[in-house]
């Protein structure tokens, strides 16, 4: 009892105080420990991430290298077939096989695409009633997809076009008269040529207006984009106006069949560089040809 009383007197509270201080210190240490642990975990994750990133970059660099290698190999092959055997050997053997695999895949896909194109390359859907088909013809110019046109064909004993969204200035009726009953594929490819050429011509005019804004002006064009009059200025000091008329008499082509160049200066069209430009315009899409002329400093 004495002890207890003694304890009650002063010792117990003191003791409790000591214990409390100790407990606090302990928990503080524990927390610190935990924090350190989680920091270590975080860092580990970071390391993993960075490793993955490194691997990815390594892989990318490797493919890049191998692609360059492939290019070199291909070029070399063109130059000299015999040298190729000597170069291919040793450490690059595995890379070489990977490369051949890639090349094979690429050719396969290309072949498939070509095959699709050979069999028509059109999207064909059966109509609900089963008597006809819908065919869609996609148009593209310089790798950019443009409008898609559609046709509904009735495949009875006489093939008939029931519905379509092809503009009236495309000679659909004429093409149908020539090919439709005899060869559907011929008909579709002729139509596709016309549509692609039309889309291409229109796209060239759009590109001129976009890319060569302020330099080449579209003075005149029509719905079929088969006569286009463009105006540009001679790069010389007096800046003579030059009128360039592009005529497309072959409607299934996106390149002109006739290019006329006129200017205030009557001698200008017969100068050698403008003669050259004229032939450039005959074999290059107009927006590219004019860009080239601008680069050369022929036009302002």
């Amino acid at each position, binding site marked *: 009892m004495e002890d207890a009383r003694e304890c009650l007197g002063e010792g117990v509270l003191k003791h409790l105080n000591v214990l409390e201080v100790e407990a606090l210190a302990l928990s503080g240490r524990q927390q610190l420990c935990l924090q350190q642990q989680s920091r270590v975990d975080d860092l580990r994750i970071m390391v993993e991430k960075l490793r993955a990133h490194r691997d990815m970059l390594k892989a990318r660099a490797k493919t890049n290298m191998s692609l360059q290698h492939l290019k070199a190999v291909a070029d070399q092959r063109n130059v000299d077939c015999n040298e190729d055997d000597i170069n291919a050997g040793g450490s690059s053997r595995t890379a070489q096989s990977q490369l051949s695999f890639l090349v094979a895949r690429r050719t396969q896909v290309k072949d498939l695409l070509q095959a699709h194109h050979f069999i028509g390359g059109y999207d064909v*859907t059966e109509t609900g009633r089963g008597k006809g088909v819908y065919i869609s013809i996609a148009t593209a110019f310089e790798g950019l997809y443009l409008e898609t046109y559609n046709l*509904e064909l009735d495949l009875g004993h006489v093939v008939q076009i*029931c*519905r379509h*969204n092809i503009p009236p200035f495309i000679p659909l*009726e004429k093409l149908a008269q020539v090919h439709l009953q005899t060869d559907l594929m011929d008909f579709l490819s002729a139509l596709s040529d016309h549509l692609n050429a039309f889309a291409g011509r229109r796209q060239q005019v759009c590109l001129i207006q976009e890319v060569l804004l302020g330099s080449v002006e579209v003075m005149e064009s029509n719905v079929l984009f*088969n006569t286009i009059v463009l105006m540009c200025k001679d790069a010389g000091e007096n800046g003579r106006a030059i009128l360039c008329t592009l005529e497309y008499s072959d*409607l299934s082509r996106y390149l002109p069949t006739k290019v006329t160049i006129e200017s205030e200066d009557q001698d200008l069209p017969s100068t050698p560089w403008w003669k050259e430009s004229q032939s450039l315009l005959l074999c290059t899409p107009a927006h590219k040809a004019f860009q080239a002329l601008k680069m050369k400093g022929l036009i302002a």
Partner: protein
Amino acid sequence: MDDSAKQVLRKIIRRIPSNKLQNILSKWEHLSKKQFRSLEFTQAKWLLCDNLLSLCEENDLSMKHVTELEMIYRIENPAQGSWNVCQLIDPSEEAVTVDSLTFKDSFKAHLKHLISHVSVKMKKHEDNAIWIRIAWGDNFTQPNHLNPTYVVHHLQTPYVFVSGLTAKHKPFLHQALIPSTHYGGLKDVHLSGRCLTALRDLLMRQYKQAFPVKHPRLLQEKSPVPSHPNIETEHAKHTEKRLQMAAEAFGEGILPKLETAVYKLETRFRENGMPGRREEPFRGVVKFSSSNLLESLKNCVSSGMASAPVTPLLSSITQKGRNYFVITDKGPGVSHTQGRKI
């Protein structure tokens, strides 16, 4: 400025609604900026007209300039009076290469050769359309500038849109159009309406047509059809099918605004369980009218007020680009429509 020009100008100003007057006059390039600013468009029209007339006197303007003003107004507001469509047929080789300048000269020359006292004005619009205004006169009278004929043509296309043409002048117009466009003939396509752009869009196929695709979009993605309270909504699949059929027949999105379609029926009356079976055709005329006919018909199909599939008679409006038909029993099967195949 002579009296007749003054009179015509007054009448033209009277026709133009006050709220459009300022815009129209600003496009008329025969007043100086200062002169234009001096006009007060809040004034009463007759007063404004008097001021305008004195400005015209000042600038020494003539009938030619006055008709230009009318043409500007008409191009801006084509929905006045009815437009009929003709189609050029048998194109020659040159037809694809005609340019607007040669066409203008050739048309004028041909028309003036056919008829004296005719006033022709042409203007190429932004969308490459050539607008032709013809005021007709005859040997004894001056051209009537108050009731001109308007012709709209896109070169290289076979369609000609005509408004305000009398039967008397029709042959002249045809005879001038055919050689100047290098075609072999001109025929009526039986399409008419007030909205010029709608007729053009329909024939040039510039509206959105619906074609089936391999992977149709879900119904919810398309605009829902407002259901009619009196009509029970059927099975969702049927609804989807009906919507697709309605879209395939009449198009998607904003449809060309046609007002009417007329069918002359000359088919046999053969209703089951009905007396009156006979061989002679049962004659009648059916006329559909609406503020937007294609929209109404599409709605009829999609809401079930018309039974699917859409009859070729109705889908022919968009597919053949015409709104007047004569229906007879010729040929086997269902009623046959006369008209272009494509």
